[in-house]
C-alpha cells in the first residue's frame, strides 16, 4: 500500500476527507500530501469555498408565491382523497 496519495487521488478523495469517510491511514496520507503540495491546498480551499457558496444559494434565490399556492393545492388534494384503508385498489 502506498503511503502518499497523488494529486489526482487528493482530488478524488476530497469529499470523503471532508465527510470524515477516509480510513485513519488514508487521512494521514491526505494531510501529509496537503502539507507538501501548494496546488492541492489551493484545490481544497476552492472546494471548501464552492461548498460554502452552494450553502448560500437557497437563501439567495428569491422566494416567489408559487410555493404557497402549491401547498394549498396539495392540501386540497389530500382533503379530497378517500380516507385511508378505503382506497379501492
Amino acid at each position, binding site marked *: 500500500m502506498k503511503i502518499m496519495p497523488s494529486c489526482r487521488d487528493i482530488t478524488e478523495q476530497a469529499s470523503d476527507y471532508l*465527510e470524515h469517510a477516509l480510513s485513519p491511514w488514508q487521512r494521514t496520507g491526505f494531510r501529509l500530501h496537503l502539507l507538501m503540495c501548494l496546488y492541492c491546498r489551493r484545490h481544497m480551499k476552492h472546494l471548501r469555498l464552492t461548498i460554502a457558496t452552494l450553502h448560500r444559494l437557497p437563501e439567495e434565490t428569491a422566494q416567489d408565491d408559487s410555493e404557497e399556492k402549491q401547498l394549498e393545492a396539495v392540501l386540497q388534494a389530500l382533503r379530497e382523497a378517500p380516507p385511508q384503508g378505503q382506497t379501492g385498489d
Partner: protein
Amino acid sequence: MSRPLPSDDELIPRLLAGDEAAYAQLVHAYHGLMIHLARAIVGDAFADEVAQEAWMAVLRALPRFERRSSLKTWILRIASNTAKSRLRHESRSVSLDAMLEDRPSLDPGRFRSDGHWAVPPPAWHADTPDDLLASRELRAVVDGAIEALPPMQRAALTLRDMQNLDMPTICKILEVSESNGRVLLHRARSRIQAAIDEYQQR
C-alpha cells in the same frame, strides 16, 4: 416561518386518524424540501406534479409505514422514487446506471500520468462566498453547472450542500449505498468547482 413539527410518535397517530391539521403541518414542514428534491431529479417542469403525486402516495402508504426510518426520511424517499420513475417515463434512455454514471471527478487531462497536476488549479479572485456571488455572471455559471449535472448528482448536491441534510439520511432517501452517495456528491461538487475554475481563467 413554520411551526416546529411534533415528534413522529405524536404525529403519526394523528395522521392515521385523518387529522387535517396534522397533515397541514406535515405538508408545510416538508413540501419545500420535496420540491427541491423533485426539481433536482426531474427538473422544474414536472417538480410540482411529482410532489403532488408523492404526497398522495404518502397518504396511501402511511398505514403500512413500519417506522424503520424517520417519517421525514420515509416521505422524502417516496418523493425521490416518484421523481425517478417520472424521469424514466419522460426520458426512456435514462437508466439508473446513467443516473449513477461513473467518471473521474476532474478532466483526466488535468493530471500527468504519474498523478501530479499537469494543469494546476488557477488562482481565484475570491476568498468568500460573498466575493463569488457578487458577480452576477459567476452566479449564472454556477446555476448553469448545477443545471448540467446528471439528475442523481444534482439530487445529492441539493440535499447535502443546499438543504443541509446528513449523508446517511440522503443515501436512504436516494436509495444508494453510502459510498455511492459520496461519489455522487463529490462528482457534483467537482463539476461546480471546475466551472468556477474555468470562469476565473477568463
